[in-house]
């Protein structure tokens, strides 16, 4: 119940902000932070729950963005349709990638997912219809009524996607599916011998995770009014989507949300106040600090504090 109140409050807050007179830059930056909430949450479904570290976030994200471009260019599809189609395309890519790679374990799976980025990147660079390596310029349609600007509208759209992503992740986490995924992370052999169809479950997680990443990428072309392959298949998306759950904590849906808001905001602040290059450094340093000092992330730290508090009484 508390969760659903939180969901309603978050959506209401996002909509309220967008309709208020808040500075336009807030929405410009807030969109990016929310986009990372979706990416981190999506990554965590496979990487956190099942323990399969996916470096391919940028591929799923980029394919989502380019699916939106194709639909917009070809039939002028509305944003909602673009997002749904992007989720389907990236979900399909997730299913295919999973089918080919999920028999590999540990580091071998991770390496295979890096390859997916380069394959997709190369394919798009060589596809003239979507602009090839030079990219494609897009003209934003007018914003929906009620909204002053398209950026404000995209902010609300991304907030809804973030909330939807968290709801899906949470449902998976608390259900039998989540327990099966955790069993896979703890011991794949024991899971299989306990009746868990490990390959099917991993495929499911990879598909859902990919679909959410694609949905997060779909509004990107409209957000930037422009799309080119190098920045949409940027490895930084993969690194951030992995770092954020690690920093927040991977065992609970709240972990990636905390990580994304924390790291995403810091990145935005650093980009504006210092430089765009430094923000990559910030991700790296924070990731190392957390992996060494707090391997269970912020949530792990909080749990430890709570435990200390209880045992000191």
């Amino acid at each position: 119940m508390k969760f659903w109140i939180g969901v309603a409050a978050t959506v209401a807050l996002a909509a309220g902000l967008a309709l208020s007179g808040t500075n336009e830059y807030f929405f410009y930056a807030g969109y990016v932070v929310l986009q990372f909430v979706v990416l981190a949450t999506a990554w965590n479904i496979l990487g956190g729950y099942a323990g399969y570290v996916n470096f391919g976030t940028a591929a799923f994200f980029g394919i989502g963005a380019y699916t939106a471009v194709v639909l917009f260019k070809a039939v002028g599809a509305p944003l909602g349709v673009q997002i749904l189609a992007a989720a389907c395309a990236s979900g399909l890519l997730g299913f295919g990638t999973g089918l080919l790679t999920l028999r590999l374990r540990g580091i071998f799976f991770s390496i295979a997912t890096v390859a997916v980025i380069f394959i997709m990147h190369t394919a798009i660079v060589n596809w003239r219809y979507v602009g090839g390596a030079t990219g494609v310029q897009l003209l934003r349609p007018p914003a929906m009524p009620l909204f002053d600007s398209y950026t404000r509208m995209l902010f609300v759209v991304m907030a809804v996607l973030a909330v939807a992503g968290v709801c899906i992740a949470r449902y998976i986490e608390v259900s039998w599916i989540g327990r099966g995924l955790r069993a896979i992370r703890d011991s794949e052999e024991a899971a299989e011998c306990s009746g868990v169809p490990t390959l099917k479950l991993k495929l499911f997680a990879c598909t859902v995770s990919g679909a959410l990443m694609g949905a997060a990428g779909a509004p990107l072309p409209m957000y930037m009014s422009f799309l080119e392959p190098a920045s949409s298949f940027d490895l930084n998306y993969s690194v951030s989507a992995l770092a954020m759950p690690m920093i927040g904590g991977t065992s609970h849906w709240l972990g990636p949300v905390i990580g994304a808001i924390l790291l995403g905001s810091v990145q935005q602040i650093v980009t504006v106040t210092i430089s765009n290059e430094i923000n990559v450094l910030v991700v790296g340093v924070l990731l190392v600090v957390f992996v060494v000092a707090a391997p269970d992330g912020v949530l792990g730290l909080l749990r430890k504090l709570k435990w200390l508090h209880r045992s000191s009484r």
Partner: protein
Amino acid sequence: MAPPLLQITGVSKHFGGFAALSEVSLEVAPGERFGLIGPNGSGKTTLINCVSGALRNESGSIVFDGAEISRLPAYQRTRRGIARSFQIPRPFKTMSVLENLVVPLEYVAHRRTLHTADTWDEAMAILRQMGMAEKADSPSNLLSQVELRKLELARAMAARPRLLISDEAMAGLAGNEVDEVLKILFDLNATGITIIMIEHIMQAVMRFSQRVICLDAGRIICEGAPAEIVKNPDVQKAYLGA
């Protein structure tokens, strides 16, 4: 006589050029207490891995309850009624002891209904039967060796098996702990579950089994009642190298 519950015919398995199993055939009757012994590297665990589905046998057939299972993935064999414990315990270490049992319950016995309350109640009942009820909420990575062995058996039981394979569930345990685990296995067998025991502790496997097979270098060298097995010169040679 009732048809065998498990029938292994001509099963072979190679690792590279090494023949881990060559043409192994055996039958286990329903309700039987069956012992599998042999020196280290003789192929006991490989045979069990072929039966449980962790490995695929290259030739031969494995028939369980009248159906060929040697091409089925492991989880489907579990659903048909074959459960195993692991030689080196593999608990779901991020879960509580109770939750460890809920996994097989949800994925095997209750997979069509998913009545959450029933599932947790049944998990608790199995823990009580194992004498581990007070450990239900402890994280499974904080258990002692004997508790881990019992958890392995409890989790296998939660899959409601007809055939339970116990892979060295007693290795490294103290005398009274061995008795404790043996009693659990005897009790399970009394409820009609067929049990295959792989064990190095001779006194335990001889006391437990009705029939014993000895493997050496991937072949069956001897089969019979426990008393005959210990007297067999081939078995003595395999174990003592004399």
